[in-house]
């Protein structure tokens, strides 16, 4: 008995099974290094906790309890993970295009400030209240646009003048910090007489994204983050633009000879990256804090780099890494409460994870792993 391909069904099934096993092996192989990196970082972090006189087992128990121990813990982990997913995707997209976006922090802040401004001031400007289905997309959309523009500037400088994006995005971070400090202390400051901090007024109710469950803080932004991750995957691997971004990232010279407009692609990649970072800020404002406050976004930019690298710049890897980082940040607070180990140890562990992921040769050496993977070029020096 043979089917149309001229192969017996048993053989076809075997082929299918073989290819499935091969895929699974590949998947496990690509997960192996990150998992071992995480494990090693946790062990080293535990040693550090023990050295400074803490109990690492109690600390990690507190961490897990705080991150996953209850519905509220899970909800808070998702709340933490949401901006991490967006910002991690932002950095990952830039990496795919051969660009290193250290400026997610500034782009995020601009997205947040813009969303807050639209959120609290627009009804007043228009002298009317807006329905949520117009107000929310406007606030979020303009926040995304602000982030995109803020990142497109260093992108354009890179494409047309050769100014390196690493320094330029860092400078844009400080410029954004100065401008938002000025705005939140001056024109956009909450006029409430009880307000002592640099923050905007609360956004209108019509601009707020509701929580998913009535008693928990987890909001629809988390679901949006997961959807956006799928969209980014589709964009990078199933569209012409994605192909262009990846080709420019892999080899700009080859891209040029293949007829791709390299300069335009660089600007688009950075704008897309900034749009995702801006989305992170806009969602934090419209779905969680309902205002922008100075200093809330500190550290997202560098965490996002670690997340993008840990997720190997793959959108789904980024989601997993972001949830891990969100769980650690969230659980860290409970850990500090229970064991008095400062929550800053989380930053140390995260840096160690990044170290071991980046220098996978160390992990290969420790665990005697021989599987070879193709090296991905992430960035280039000042010259090119």
């Amino acid at each position: 008995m043979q089917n149309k391909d001229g192969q017996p069904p048993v053989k076809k099934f075997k082929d299918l099974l073989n290819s499935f096993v091969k895929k699974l092996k590949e998947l496990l192989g690509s997960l192996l290094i990150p998992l071992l990196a995480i494990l090693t970082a946790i062990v080293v972090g535990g040693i550090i906790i023990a050295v400074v006189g803490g109990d690492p087992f109690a600390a990690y128990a507190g961490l897990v309890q705080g991150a996953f121990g209850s519905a509220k813990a899970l909800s808070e982990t998702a709340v933490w993970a949401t901006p991490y997913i967006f910002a991690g995707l932002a950095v990952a997209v830039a990496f795919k295009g051969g660009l290193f976006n250290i400026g997610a922090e500034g782009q995020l802040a601009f997205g947040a400030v813009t969303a807050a401004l639209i959120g609290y001031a627009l009804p007043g400007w228009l002298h009317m209240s807006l329905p949520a289905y117009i107000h929310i997309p406007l606030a979020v959309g303009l926040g995304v646009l602000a982030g995109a523009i803020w990142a497109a500037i260093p992108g354009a400088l890179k494409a047309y003048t050769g100014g390196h994006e690493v320094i330029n995005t860092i400078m844009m971070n400080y410029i954004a910090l100065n401008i938002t400090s000025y705005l939140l202390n001056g024109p956009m400051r909450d006029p409430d007489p009880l307000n002592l901090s640099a923050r905007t007024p609360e956004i209108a109710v019509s601009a707020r994204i509701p929580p998913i469950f009535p008693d928990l803080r987890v909001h629809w932004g988390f679901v949006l983050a997961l959807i956006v991750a799928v969209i980014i995957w589709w964009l990078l691997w199933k569209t012409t633009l994605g192909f262009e971004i990846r080709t420019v990232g892999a080899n700009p010279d080859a891209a040029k000879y293949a007829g791709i407009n390299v300069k335009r692609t660089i600007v688009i990649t950075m704008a897309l990256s900034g749009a995702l970072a801006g989305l992170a800020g806009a969602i934090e404002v419209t779905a969680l804090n309902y205002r922008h406050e100075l200093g809330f976004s500190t550290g997202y930019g560098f965490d996002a780099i670690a997340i993008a690298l840990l997720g190997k710049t793959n959108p789904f890897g980024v989601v997993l890494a972001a949830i891990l980082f969100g769980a650690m940040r969230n659980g860290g607070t409970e850990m500090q409460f229970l064991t008095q180990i400062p929550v800053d140890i989380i930053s140390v562990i995260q840096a160690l994870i990044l170290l071991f992921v980046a220098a996978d040769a160390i992990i290969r050496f420790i665990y005697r792993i021989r599987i070879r993977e193709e090296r991905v070029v992430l960035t280039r020096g000042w010259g090119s």
Partner: protein
Amino acid sequence: MDWRRFAIIALVIAIMFGTVVLVGISQNSPLVIITSMLATTIAVATPLTLGALSGLYCERSGVVNIGIEGMMLGAAFFGWLAAIYMNTIFHQAPMLSLIIGVFVAILTGGLFGLLHAVLSITFKVDQIIGGTVINILATGITGFLNRQMFFGSGSVFGGQVPHAPGVLPSIHIPLLADIPVIGRIFEQQPIALSAVALVVITHFVLFHTRWGLRTRAVGEHPRAADTVGINVVFMRYANVIIGGCMAGLGGAYFTLESISSFEPLMTNGRGFIALAAMIFGNWTPFGAWAAALVFGAAQALQINLQFFRDLIPPQLAVLQNAYVVGLAPYILTMLILTGLIGKTIPPAADGKPYEK
């Protein structure tokens, strides 16, 4: 260092100084203001100068170092920790404690340099990622230990606030500092003075010694250097560690010379600006120093404008806003990098691991 770049640097510094002179002229004579500005400029440019020298050693030998920020932060913390701990042990011997602190800071920087060398030379990690690892690691470790050691239950000082050893005293250079009015420029603290000295020394080492020739050779064309018997790996290791020590001394400036305390993230981007200064200076010590002085002048402008705040005329009211004035060095850096002020040429093998 071509004349065009030099002229622009001089012009920019002159404009910044001119602004303050214009504002403050009703209260002080211009000479006094300029002297004070210049003294402040040299002092606040110290970490930038040392950071730029750190980058210079690394990149001249072919290793990109964007971890200067983290190296300085780590050195600032551990130098300060050592100084304050020694001060407790020795029962108030501030001078000795501070000197030990400076050495610990340099050592910390050197160790970070070693880490960067291991990552980028031995393991051939993407060097910009390696630098980012150092930045994140330094932020995490200093934040964690700062809280654990001074505020946590496991505090090494038993919950008590230890006596800070103060800051390094300024040195009175004979003759130069005795000149009336402008002598004030030469009244500087030791790290600021050594930064200036190190600029000259680095220039001499890089361009007039065999070591410098070899360093530049492995940074420009490692294969050729290897062929004539220069040990590429050794030269790169040595220079990255020296660079780390420079950043370490720069870190000591923050906690042992500028103010006598540590705050998380206190380096506040100075390491990145130092890197920009190095690029602006076209990978030369004097060029990097001049660029560091531009950033120092921008900071001095900010400080002095706050000082003369009430004298600022209404048509220049924008200068009253510290945030607006604070933008100057960052925008300047970006303008520099766009190549508006002449192209810069990095060492040819900068950022490329050497594969034998």
